[in-house]
């Protein structure tokens, strides 16, 4: 274990704070918090810039074209060019818009996304904002997203914006339920709402080889898949990007935004994606723990960001592969399939816990999940594969 490299950021922060040794306690406290905030912003805004260009590159590769390759080596400076372009664009606010709310909506959305990033442990001793109810904080703050989207839709005073906001809020509310319920089994098994404890509970290895991540238990695997899909919906990504649709409602709640305000929406969407993926890594993929004991020499934060990048790649991959869903299909699957499955994970985790957390518990929880999954598949199968399409209009 190479302690110094693992703790390099912690030590750097301590060194910075040692300059303030003589000053009162609150100065040190505030400075420490400010360092955390600036680190968080620095890392994730850089990651945002990087991902925005990588996404275009990867999508281009999937569609057999080059993607951005003009600005800098391999087009890597594209985000800088984009940022400058966004900044010098005219900021158009509709004459009949509610100016203040119109301005505040993207700000609130970005603030919420950044706040939710704060509770995730990025490495050993590297949680920017370690509080007792970290998981609860994540969802409590995250629930303000709906209000921000509503503000954007309402303040624009435009029917496309309002309809888009309605769609976005409907899907966010529907999928918030499975998202939170799939977290519950982990919280129940660990017995804590603190992200650090959840990561610590996944530290050991079964038989010295298989890491004790929750994704390797049947309930954990199911919960992870459900959580990932719900996270996809919460961050409005393809295949669930229904709030936006060029042919139906333009850009949804972002229709009346231009220039840097639009970029802020874009940024908030990506930061939200990072936050949900980071929470998925923390809850199910063992946080910053290495997959093999031998590889524990690699610093913990490297593992966290490797897992995060893997999840982000899946996000991009799905965007390049899947067509979008219809809103009624989305709602159906949320309420009829995802919610019962989420509750099943909850029960399967309890079964796993009470049958001894070993191989027996593993098999019993697998049994529970298979039974419910097959029952749901039989019940939900409409047996109407190619029925004539029925058109329904608003009445």
């Amino acid at each position: 274990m190479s302690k110094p490299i693992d703790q390099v950021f912690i030590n750097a922060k301590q060194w910075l704070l040692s300059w303030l040794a003589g000053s009162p306690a609150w100065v040190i406290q505030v400075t420490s918090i400010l360092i955390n905030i600036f680190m968080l912003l620095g890392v994730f805004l850089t990651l945002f810039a990087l991902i925005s260009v990588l996404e275009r590159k990867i999508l281009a590769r999937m569609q057999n074209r080059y993607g951005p390759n003009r600005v800098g080596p391999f087009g890597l400076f594209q985000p800088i060019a984009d940022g400058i372009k966004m900044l010098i664009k005219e900021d158009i606010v509709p004459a009949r818009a509610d100016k203040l709310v119109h301005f505040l909506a993207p700000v609130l959305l970005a603030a919420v996304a950044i706040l939710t990033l704060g509770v995730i442990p990025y490495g050993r001793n590297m949680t920017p904002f370690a509080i007792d109810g970290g998981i609860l904080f994540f969802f409590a703050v995250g629930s303000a997203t709906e209000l921000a989207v509503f503000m954007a839709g309402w303040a624009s005073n435009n029917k496309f914006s309002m309809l888009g906001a309605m769609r976005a809020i409907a899907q966010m509310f529907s999928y918030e339920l499975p998202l939170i319920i799939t977290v519950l089994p982990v919280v129940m098994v660990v017995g804590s709402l603190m992200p650090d404890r959840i990561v610590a509970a996944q530290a050991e290895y079964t038989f010295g080889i298989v890491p004790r991540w929750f994704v390797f238990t049947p309930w954990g695997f199911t919960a992870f898949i459900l959580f990932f899909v719900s996270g996809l919906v919460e961050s409005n990504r393809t295949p669930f990007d229904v709030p936006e649709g060029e042919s139906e409602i333009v850009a949804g709640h972002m229709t009346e935004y231009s220039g840097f305000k639009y970029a802020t929406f874009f940024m908030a969407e990506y930061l939200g994606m990072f936050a949900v993926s980071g929470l998925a890594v923390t809850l199910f993929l063992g946080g910053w723990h290495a997959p093999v004991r031998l590889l524990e020499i690699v610093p913990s934060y490297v593992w966290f960001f490797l897992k995060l990048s893997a999840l982000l790649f899946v996000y991009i991959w799905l965007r390049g592969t899947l067509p979008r869903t219809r809103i009624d299909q989305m709602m159906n699957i949320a309420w009829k399939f995802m919610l019962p499955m989420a509750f099943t994970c909850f029960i399967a985790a309890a079964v796993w816990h009470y049958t001894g957390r070993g191989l027996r518990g593993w098999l019993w929880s697998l049994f529970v999940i298979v039974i419910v999954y097959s029952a749901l598949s039989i019940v939900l199968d409409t047996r109407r594969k190619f029925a004539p399409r029925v058109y329904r209009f608003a009445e």
Partner: protein
Amino acid sequence: MSSAAFVIIAIFTLAAALAAATLQKLMHAALSFAVALVGLAAFFFLLGAEFVGLALVFIYIGAVAVLIVFTILLTRRDVGKNRGFNWAGVLIALAVFGGLTWSILKTQSLSILAPHIRALTVKRIGEALMTGYVWPLQCVGVLLTAALIGALILVMEEKR
């Protein structure tokens, strides 16, 4: 430091509450109400009751504020119309305030110095809910399930 934080949060909360009561546009008032609730949650954080503060944000900002905002949107045609000053509302608010102040001042606990209590952790709340208060919890659960089913029945498509 905590007294400075108290003053800042108090000013913030009161300003938001005042805005919620006096702003002309109903939607602005509803949004300032949400801001005032954030201030209240900050008070709970300051007092070390993290869980209560987070629950406040979760329920009031995430659900109740959105509900209020949607109710305004879907029921009022003339959201922007100026209705003049509502004197009856002032009277009711003053009456509620007076009643609360009177009953708080009458209690004995104001004169007793609060003993030093342990910080309210999530674990302790969970234990209390699962042991002493398990029946009220279950009843609330049943009530909420009934409300959910009722809402589903309300929006169910009528077969023609």
